């Protein structure tokens, strides 16, 4: 087991290295460079321009720039934003917890909602409950995250104005206000995710429920609930977990949208702001963090597979 984890970690490091090179290359493809942002477009002499370029190391060849950037990045120094004048790493340290909180809570709640709903749908396959659940799912499926968010805002502003008007409050300031300020964003991102978890649970369960061992268990008089939640679910888990993990990756995009709608000071909003202000060090850093998160999630799922499914374990 340890050997698998180690070889996975090695492969992951290689992928992350490739990703960082790609992100850096993309970053230098962006039209214009940092110099023009710092010096400004007008009034700067050629000498000033060249001076700033030299100071930033932008006159060096790209691979040299990359190695230097990587060296700094590995030490936790992602540069200084020319727009805000703050250290990028310090900003990220503030923003990442907000996004991670949202992501983890989303994963938790969507599983708590989607898994039982999926089991119920599978058990009642093609009967009324199943049809109702699936009709709702279809709606949640086809709407983009920002439409769900804006419709929730519309409803929220009528039904629960106190939730709607909540601006983001850090946990350390006022835990109760923090929870209230997170409800709407969480609902927005959890609904579609729960719908997908439900859909996957339903089809995985349906497959397992027709297996012979279920019939045997029933014939032996095992209580129905126990069969559904213990025997069937345990065997349906591997595909569900894989799929949830995949959706978790997809959700990273949704995270950006939700943070933008509800003005949460997270990573996604920082990325969008950096794109529109042409804050290159910030764009590169946020892109890298998102890419890393995605690679990491996938690696974890790959490692979970043999844990969940003994047949996948090497002998």
């Amino acid at each position: 087991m340890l050997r698998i984890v180690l070889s996975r970690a090695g492969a992951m490091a290689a992928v992350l290295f490739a990703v960082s090179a790609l992100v850096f290359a993309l970053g230098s493809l962006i039209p214009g460079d940092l110099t023009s942002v710092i010096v400004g477009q007008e009034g700067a002499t050629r000498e000033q321009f060249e001076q700033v370029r030299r100071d930033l190391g932008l006159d060096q060849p790209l691979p040299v720039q990359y190695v230097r950037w990587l060296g700094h990045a590995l030490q936790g120094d992602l540069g200084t934003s020319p727009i805000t004048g703050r250290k990028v790493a310090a900003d990220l340290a503030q923003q990442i917890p907000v996004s991670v909180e949202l992501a983890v809570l989303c994963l938790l709640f969507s599983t708590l909602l989607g898994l039982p709903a999926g089991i119920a749908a599978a058990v009642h396959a093609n009967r009324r409950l199943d049809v109702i659940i699936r009709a709702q799912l279809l709606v949640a499926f086809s709407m983009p995250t920002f439409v769900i968010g804006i419709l929730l805002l519309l409803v929220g502003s009528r039904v629960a104005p106190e939730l709607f008007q909540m601006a983001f409050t850090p946990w350390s300031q006022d835990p109760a206000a923090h929870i209230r300020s997170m409800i709407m964003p969480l609902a927005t991102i959890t609904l579609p995710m729960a719908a997908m978890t439900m859909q996957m649970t339903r089809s995985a369960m349906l497959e397992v429920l027709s297996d012979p061992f279920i019939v045997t268990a029933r014939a032996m008089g095992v209580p129905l609930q126990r069969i559904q939640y213990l025997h069937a679910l345990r065997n349906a888990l591997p595909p569900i977990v894989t799929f949830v993990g995949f959706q978790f990756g997809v959700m990273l995009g949704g995270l950006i949208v939700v943070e933008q709608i509800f003005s949460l000071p997270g990573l996604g909003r920082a990325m969008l702001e950096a794109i529109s202000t042409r804050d290159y060090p910030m764009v590169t850093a946020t892109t890298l963090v998102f890419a890393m998160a995605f690679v990491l999630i996938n690696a974890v799922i790959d490692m979970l597979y043999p844990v969940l499914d003994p047949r996948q374990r090497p002998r």
Partner: protein
Amino acid sequence: MNPSSTGAAVALPAAAAVPRRPAFLAQLWRHKGGAFALAVVLLFVLLAVSGRLVAPYDPNTGELASMLAAPSGRHWFGTDELGRDTLSRVIDGSRIAITVAFLSVALAMLAGVAIGVVAGYFGGWIDSVLNRSQDVLFAFPTLLLAIIIVAVLGPGLFNAVLAIAVVYTPRFARLARASALTVKTSEYLDAARLAGVSTGAILVRHMLPNVLPSVIVLAALSMSTAQLAYASLSFLGLGVSPPQADWGSMLSKARDFITVAPWLVAWPVAALVLLMLAFNILGDAIRDVLDPRHATATGPANAV
């Protein structure tokens, strides 16, 4: 699949494909959802084309006297914070939505089919290089990848279209490659090769017609998600620049006035969802007509 190209004849295929078209449209029209969806899409296309002729007001200039006016006889859909007519802006937005949906999917289809057919036909290292690079793109979350590409290219309408096209290319490439692989080993292709038909002609005349039906189905199914992906980008401020209206950017602005002017949210959302549904149903209908084998298999499209 294509009866014309099963013969060893070299010059026939292009001509033989023509008579199928009226039958295809007629079948689509008889399909129960297809007619409705086609009508809705055509309505939006019509609005997109005629645009400012039908729009009651100029979409980009407002009357300050009627700021945030509720829907009325004068302004059917109400007005926004600058007194601009929402109906006119929704109509103007359909031009962007339709253009983006068709253009981005068309670009993705062109690139994807070219890559897929070449990879499938030639195999070897070309195939593995194309496959690997496509796998990397395929693994990435759609919206995240589109945002990153826009970040590199800079915000704007065309760049957003390009980003969506890049994101969608691997699906087409994968499908085209799979179909190309099945055609590659067929006897009539051997016959064509023995008859001395050049590689280029084989690709265009024999591979392409066989790859196209499934690719067209995928294109039809991709329209709705492409439209939504663009709306998401535009909502995030990575689409058209300010005075120009499109549904995503209208919604992004409407968010600030959601308590006082809910109509600013309602109409763009209605237009967006209607077009999305129409594209979805149309895609399913085209699949049913072109590819009867998959008529029953319906999987939900992967929304962004």
